[in-house]
């Protein structure tokens, strides 16, 4: 999975208008943010093979946090 593909999963799960947000932009600052959709995103990431550990799940603030988890688990095959 590429970073762009991962970002698209996040954008779709979070019901953001598009995937055109900076990696360090807090999700809360993106139009359409909804905390419940964070749970939907976690499920979708699970389905995509990325498990966010319990101790990190409550600390996800932005896409960078998700990239970090993905790198740790080796699920990214391309990181720009």
């Amino acid at each position, binding site marked *: 999975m590429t970073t762009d593909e991962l970002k698209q999963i996040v954008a779709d799960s979070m019901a953001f208008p598009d995937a055109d947000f900076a990696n360090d932009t807090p999700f809360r600052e993106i139009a359409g943010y909804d905390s419940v959709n964070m*749970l939907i995103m976690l499920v979708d990431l699970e389905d995509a093979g990325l498990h966010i550990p*319990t101790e990190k799940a409550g600390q996800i603030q932005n896409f960078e946090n998700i990239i970090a988890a993905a790198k740790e688990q080796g699920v990214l095959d391309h990181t720009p």
Partner: protein
Amino acid sequence: MKQATITAGHYCLPPYKLTNEELEERFGAKAVASVTKMSGIQCRRIASEEITATDLAYTAANRMLESLNIDPATVDGLIFASQTPDHPIPPSSSILHHRLGLGKACFTLDISIGCPAFPYACSVAESLIATEKCSKVLVLMADVVSRYVNANDRSLAALHGDGAAALLLEATDREYGFKGFRFGAESSGWEHIVVPAGGARLACSPDTALEKNVEPGVTRNAQQLAMNGPAVFQFSISEIPNAVDQALHELELTLDDIDLVILHQANRTMLELIYKRLRVPPAKQFYFIEEVGNLAAASSPVTLLEAMRRGKIEPHSTTMVVSFGNGLNWGVSIHKWGDQIESLNSASFEYASG
């Protein structure tokens, strides 16, 4: 050692139904749709201000005892599991003991625990019976969590309902009854489900009563329930399947030995993931969340009793109840049913005062 078995049960829900349509008026259709998609909850039962957890528990217990013609004086144990007691002091079990007319020679105890209540409360009752300190124990589990939820907190108002369940545990010489319990705690996450103020650590004050808008659609004050949803979600789908596997292994059982797996009804998507990870086939799954929401301490026993009411539990079958949540605690209990299941009586499960 005596065996302890569940011989009767009843549950009670407040009559008022908080529907998604009503929530849409409060939060908007889009916001409610996202909660519904995740949780599967369409409706919750909410207790009005004059109804407490002990009112609901009393009603469930009283209807059960009356329907079975059980003399309350013969009950020698009462356990009340709840995180929404009538008062900080005294224990609500004392209030229930008095109201139900139980005898003086009776063990009474409050267990301050929410969602994981079922295995914890039942294991205490089972221990009392196994060691012959008691022979007939009422296990009451009830919560009115809505009291602690801000009406303008979309993330929680849409999830929680109120309710109570009553079980009667008795001694038996037969081979059925509780077959084992296992427990666990991931207490580093205790802050993930919290009502910060109102205890000895942080007293209620004008400051703690000040409402804050945490995010769009989420308003609360420090005297109300706050939950770190993503952290609790990940705890549940990560920890619970392992806990179940471990419990089955230690009790020398497999899923083939279990006929029905009841999970704490927190969130439909979460339950589906846990069932999937455990490889529980659909025939052994049961959901009772869409119509009532997350009932906290009452969730697991109400779901068990509803499964019984719908004929999902056969004589001689074995059920596993897995309860988890605040703490972050979990418990697993396994119960083999006897020849005859004294299930819910025909009385209404809706609360009525008087």
